[in-house]
């Protein structure tokens, strides 16, 4: 039996369900080519960080200005280099080059929270050749006056602005921390999102006990982080009218299958590929294929969401959030 691994995402046709997630893997063209050869169906590039660009510009201006035009003998202290690369130019150039070099869809990723920034950079990514854009915004609401609705509004408005600025599809990569995720997901969809990616990996703060400094750190995900993604994929599947992509916890074929069954139409992998190399895609796909063969499911597309909350036999299992004894059902009370 020949298994059909093709699927779709954001209106793009994918030859397999595995997409390279936004990560340092996207920085080198060679790596991306190997990933494509290994079977990756699309790549999401590393994020363009709005805040980084701004910071970078401000720092350069500050450093070049420091001490200037103050003293007779030295009106400046660093050479006046004219061809600085600041702003999004490098990122956009890389996007164009990647698009030209690869056959699979290339998705730009944009990290920031300003409306103007999202619209502007999204437009430029489209111009640079992106097949789609994944918005990857997250801000930490520290203002006690800011309520949950105001926080959500801020996302929704930014997403609407970005979606309005481009004709290519836009996905939104969300964080796992919202009060009412389903409601929020629907708002994003209404704002124009063609897909949701579950979930962002946000940087974790850390404390240096020696220096008493606070820093941030990031770490690679593991299969053990799969659960939360499964839960929300399953719950959202069928309840929002856009594509769902999984992005945290997919390390092996079994993980990918679980995510597909829960409701993902595509699965983004990053940590596992960083750990195991680009060729890991091939072995994961083999595993997926094998399972589909064994289960006589010739098409990936068919199994998508087959175990979502709406489609599974134990919908309440997705809702269990606290430790308690397994609820044993003594009577049949389904339809």
């Amino acid at each position: 039996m020949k298994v059909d691994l093709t699927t779709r995402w954001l209106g793009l046709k994918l030859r397999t369900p595995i997409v390279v997630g936004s990560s340092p893997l996207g920085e080198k063209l060679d790596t991306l080519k190997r990933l494509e050869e290994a079977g990756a169906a699309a790549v999401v590039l590393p994020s363009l960080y709005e805040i980084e660009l701004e910071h970078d510009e401000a720092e350069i201006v500050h450093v070049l200005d420091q001490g200037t035009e103050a003293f007779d003998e030295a009106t400046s202290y660093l050479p006046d280099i004219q061809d600085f690369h600041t702003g999004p130019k490098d990122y956009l150039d890389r996007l164009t080059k990647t698009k030209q070099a690869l056959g699979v869809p290339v998705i730009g990723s944009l990290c920031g929270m300003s409306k103007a920034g999202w619209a502007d950079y999204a437009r430029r990514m489209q111009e640079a050749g992106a097949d789609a854009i994944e918005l990857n915004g997250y801000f930490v609401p520290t203002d006690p006056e800011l309520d949950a609705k105001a926080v959500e509004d801020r996302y929704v408005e930014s997403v609407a602005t970005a979606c309005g600025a481009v004709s290519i599809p836009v996905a939104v990569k969300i964080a796992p921390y919202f009060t009412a995720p389903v409601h929020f997901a629907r708002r994003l969809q209404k704002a124009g999102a063609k897909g949701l990616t579950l979930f962002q990996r946000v940087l974790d703060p850390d404390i240096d006990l020696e220096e008493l400094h606070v820093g941030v750190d990031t770490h690679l995900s593991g299969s053990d982080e799969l659960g939360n993604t499964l839960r929300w994929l399953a719950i959202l599947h069928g309840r929002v009218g856009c594509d769902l992509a999984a992005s945290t916890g997919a390390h092996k074929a079994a993980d990918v299958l679980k995510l597909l069954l829960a409701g993902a139409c595509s699965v983004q992998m990053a940590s596992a590929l960083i750990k195991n190399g680009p060729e890991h895609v091939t072995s994961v796909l083999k595993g997926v294929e094998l399972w589909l063969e064994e289960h006589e499911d010739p098409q990936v597309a068919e199994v998508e969401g087959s175990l979502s909350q709406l489609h599974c036999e134990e919908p309440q299992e997705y809702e269990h959030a606290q430790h308690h004894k397994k609820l044993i059902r003594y009577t049949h009370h389904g339809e």
Partner: protein
Amino acid sequence: MTVETSEAVARTAEKPKAAKKWITVDGNEAAARVAHKTNEVAAIFPISPSSPMAELADALSAKGEKNLWGDVPIVLQMQSEAGAAGAAHGSLQAGALTTTFTASQGLLLMIPNMFKIAGELTSTVFHVAARTVATHALSIFGDHSDVMAARSCGWAMLAANNVQEAHDFALIAQAASLRSRLPFIHFFDGFRTSHELHKIEALSDDDMRTLVDFELVRKHRARGMSPDRPDLRGTAQNPDVFFQAREACNPYYLAVPIIVKEVMDLFAAQTGRQYKLFDYVGAPDAERVIILMGSGADAAEETVEALVARGEKVGMIKVRLYRPFANDVFLAALPATARSVAVLDRTKEPGATGEPLYQDVLTALAEDLATGNGRFERMPTLVGGRYGLSSKEFNPAMVKGIFDELSKAKPKNHFTIGIVDDVTHTSLAYDKEYDLEPPDVVRAVFYGLGSDGTVGASKNSASIIASATKMHVQGYFVYDSRKAGAETVSHIRFGPRPIKSTYLIRRAQFVACHAFQFLERKDVLAEAMDGATFLINSPFGPDEVWGRLPIETQQQIIDKKLKVHVINAYRIAREAGLGMRINTVMQTCFFALSNVIPKDQAMEAIKKAIHKSYGRLGEKVVNRNLDAVSRSLENLHEVKVPAKATNPLRRIPPVPATAPDFVQRVTAAIIEGRGDQLPVSALPVDGFFPTGTARFEKRGIADSIPIWDKDLCIQCAKCAIVCPHAAIRTKVFDEKDLEAKPGTFETLPWRGSSGGDFKGKFMRIQVAPDDCTGCGICVEVCPARSKTEVKHKAINMTPRLDHLEVERKNFDFFVDIPEVDRSKADLMNVKGIMQLEPLFEFSSACPGCGETPYLKLLTQFFGDRMVVANATGCTSIYGGNLPTTPWGANKHGRGPAWSNSLFEDNAEFGLGMRLALDQQAAQARRLVEKLAPRVGDNLVRAILTADQTSEAGIHEQRQRVAELKKLVEKVDSEDARELLPVIDDLVKHSVWIIGGDGWAYDIGFGGLDHALASGRDVNILVVDTEVYSNTGGQASKSTPRAAVAKFAQAGKRTGKKDLGMIAMSYGDVYVAQVAMGASDAHTVKAFLEAESWPGPSLILAYSTCVAHGIDMSKGMEHMRDAAASGYWPLYRYDPRRALKGEPPFSLDNQRKKITARDFMQKEARFMMLSRSQPEIAEQLATQAQRDIEERWHLYEQMAKIVPAPMTAPAVSSAAGASTAAPPAPEGEE
């Protein structure tokens, strides 16, 4: 040749002319653009004010700009001007069109080669931004003493008077040099022309091709040395032929005036600008004439035109071709009607019969008269005068004063103008109020704070007006000699005609004060005309600001009927995300108020300029500036001026009333900007000034200052050791010293046993609130944190104004508490050392300077017995630039004796001091021995055998010498009289030779090497910033690979020189590499060991600098990372260890977490390249990492090397000094 030129003129005249292209540039750029186009090689070295020419040439080549022949000129930095001249000579001899740029002592260093270049009849042009030669003092400003010192070299000399001429004459000199085969000095006045911004007509490539004869270029190349057509040059000649050979060049010199005239005519035909060898301006029948050259000529021309217009028979001659001096052409230019003539020289030749130009004119006239049938029948009354030394103002009032003097029957000869000479009475009196500023010229003066963008904004405004209108513009910028809290004054003129006012604005229609604090101390309205507009940047709004102005300012506003506007530029800049840069805000306000061009048009032009200036740096920056433009217009308010001034607030005097007489009379005037008014008698005849004057200049430049929280303090004193300005201090004292203390003067009981024998005493950390620059380094290094709020430390940056009154009182009390008994302090411990009085305080170095903490530390150790030889550079500027000096003295009057000789000779200078001190000590010892029977044998023995290796030993010796002095004073003998002047040399004197890496690695390396090899007891401290900091960050041989610096724009391709290793190769040199931020204890140890080693010592001290592109408040952190990453290993090489059979080299730090690459990534000097050329940057960074690994590896091996048996290093100790190698200081491993 003549015929050819005439034909060329004719051809040129027929050619259709291209449209004029106007550019707004300064004199340096004007000259350098032509030089780069018309040369193939440039050998360069930085020296103010010519450095920007070299920088531009380097930048153009780095960008790949080609010369007229389609090649990118090679621009190579040399180790000194002597090196640049040598390289230029070689390049010329090998046939390349070659140039260089220089000034002052730099030109003097070129003289030996310049004689040769002229002797070999070599075509070249050296471009000189003429600058004062250092005599009783260094001055970076402009006069002709340098070019005059070079006039015997046999070069043709062409003087440009303004920016346009600096552009034009660069080309004329080049063309004439090729035709005549004589080398040319093309010179223009330093700063006044080199740094004056002007709208000029640009020369096109076509213009240059027309003037520069390519056939002559080919001939020049063909004269180049080649093994294919060998010849012998640079021979040695003997009495038989040298003389005749020397005369063989005469025809070439005779031809030069004709050639230059022809080239000038050709130039005129091409460009429409006609110059002559001597340009006469004025009445054809002038009776009074002045003669001069340089920028003063424009001011004189303005005056002559005005006087002629009112019917006076006056005139002037602008000298263009100064050498060869064409007598006949000169005489033809001088009206025969001239009855009295003044020749003005911008130089002084003490002892001469007159200054050079005067002598030339005198000779020309005398020779004319001697022929009996010359142009003149009788000798006009001829006088010479000096003006404008070191850029001293020269304005129409002075020119008029000279003409008035010429009206007298017996005008004063050898006069001076512009000063009051009340000693030898050379100066002319003149009417200072005389003024020529025409009404249709707009004049604006902007007072700004260094780095706030004021100068940039003024330059931008000038450029905008220059390009948006047909108006001519002129911008001149007066900077501060202080680097921290520097003040700038921008003088901008706009007018319908070319502006010849080569002097400061005295009557402005627009005055802006960009820093509100200036109003507290400065008279910023001195230049405001009646009815002028006054713009203030103020934290106080339109209703409040009036009440915040000192009464003097209020009164001026009322008297002069000024229109006052206010804006809170810092708030707007902050809100727009521009930090402290208020240039865009203030520039917008200027255009909104001045109406120089219609407002809408002006705003469009500003926006265009923003895109141009910031476009390369990113869109966000552009947008922020654009945002600032609109915010500025919304927030600019007019201030209602009341009819009466009422404020009790008065301007603060420049120095306190308690300051010594000299400081009150002289220093205060200089601080206040009244230095021009000081008469000759007020100034020291020999340039010797008192030390310890910075303490009187309370500048109050910090926004926030460190405030002590005693409850958290652990008394480590790290804040005090790192403070670059000695503005945070600690002191230990007795309870009884506190009787009269202010109530706010908190103290802590002395804690712990380290630091010295101070049990039962008290201590305090004290800020000097008016001297702190607010750099924040002290807070960064403070290790003591609150348990409940980690960000709160034992000192915290707090708004200055909130603490000013209290801390002023506290500081005054603190200073008056008696200093600690030095013999009680533990000198191996930072806490102990910091109790010692610093004799280097409140330097004007950049806030957060990495160099000054080392100097301050030195003075805490050795200040009362040290002599300093200081190389020119940052150290000599913040150390010795008037008005004040941080080098101080203790209450006994003892302190560092400081002097600066030159940039290149500092090691020799210091070595010479050592020789003198050693000789004097030997004399003293000999005489003491002879006087033993008269003063007591025991005392003499004690003095001659004293152990002066410790503080206690030196203290005891001082007491013995004091006792001896009393006894000797009573002895009536020749020996006693001879002994007294050298008696203090019986106490050990410490010689310190201090300078930066530009000196030590480059220009002074030869001398440094010799001092190291001398075996003498000299201590050399190199504050190593890895660039020429003072002249703006040019690469030195200390600059590491991969760093970007001026002259290494594309990243330095070669590795850093290992100066320490070179010094170690002598075996008897103590060498240490230190970084205070990495280990203050190591720095301390190295300083003590170096000083105690009776031979030469070298300390390389890592010094952070703004040129590194770092946050200066984190300087110590960068030092720590530099060491921890292996980038800057800490080590000590102590020959004493070799004597003991131990490895003399000790690698003193360990490499930690951070890699060299991590370290480099935090500094813009390394990161800039990755922004423009990422691939090259990556390649260089890899190599740089390799350099560091290799050096570390080598040092690790060295640390294991024990000396071969019986090879103790020989120390050729100074004759007569206490010679025994001292025991190793405590703490020796």
